[in-house]
């Protein structure tokens, strides 16, 4: 039967029991997306764009950029301290 608009002004029957049953049937044992979901999407885009997108580790990482900035600054500070300690004195 073709769609019609037999209920244009009033909402269809809200049946709380049926709704609850529906929810139980479809939400129990609800699966979680796979852990590598994002990587899967990135690989597909990389492949379909013939390598234009997601071509390096920076674009694929999920860690915030600030983590890399902080790590770099700490390494530089450490190297500077080592230089101060080990540098030959006159």
């Amino acid at each position, binding site marked *: 039967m073709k*769609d*019609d*608009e*037999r*209920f*244009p002004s*009033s*909402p*269809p*029957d809200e*049946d709380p029991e*049926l*709704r609850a*049953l*529906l*929810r*139980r*049937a*479809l*939400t*129990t044992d*609800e*699966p*979680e*997306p*796979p852990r590598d*979901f*994002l990587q*899967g*999407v*990135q690989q*597909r*885009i990389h492949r*379909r764009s013939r390598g234009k*997108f*997601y071509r390096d580790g920076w*674009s*694929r990482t*999920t860690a915030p*950029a600030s983590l890399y900035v902080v790590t770099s600054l700490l390494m530089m500070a450490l190297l500077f301290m080592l230089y101060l300690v080990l540098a030959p004195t006159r």
Partner: protein
Amino acid sequence: MKVEDEGTEARFIERLRARDERAFNELVRMYERRVFVLVHRMLGRREEAEDLSQEVFVQVFKAIGQFRGESKLSTWIFRIAVNLCKNRSLYLSRRRTRDESELENLADRDAMEGAKGATVAAIDRPDELVSGKQLEAIVANAIAAMEPDFREVLVLRDIEDLSYEEIADIVGVKEGTVKSRIHRARAQLKEAIRQALGEEVA
């Protein structure tokens, strides 16, 4: 990241339009669960849901330049998901029909052999017929057997709790049609439960 207000969402969409890969990572993280669960409810199979929900985000990445901001970003993503589900459901049902007809041909050729393995009992324990789990299974089967047009509106309304307006926007029909489809989907569901219980009790 949470897209809380229109200004934030507009800036985020600009980054997506500029094909900012890190912004897209955030988008996938934000919506992967909702999209995956929706697709799983629509298709009922985990492997298909994994494949199709990843495909949804590939399509979002490809088409983000066409997003005009007339609806919410989530509504637009859901629309893509629902359309892909519809196509996949059609493909799967055609494939199932083809497989079944091949099976029927096989059965015709060897009818007696086929009859030996035939079974009509779907429920092993009649005493637990109306226990919650079995009733839920009946409902899940009825939903799976429903036409995609009806299944999608029922899931979007009764499980995803979306408004009629949002559903109309996602499915691409008028609100009146959404209400009509929901009404008929619920009637189908009730009838399927009634039949399943009636048959099993008898």
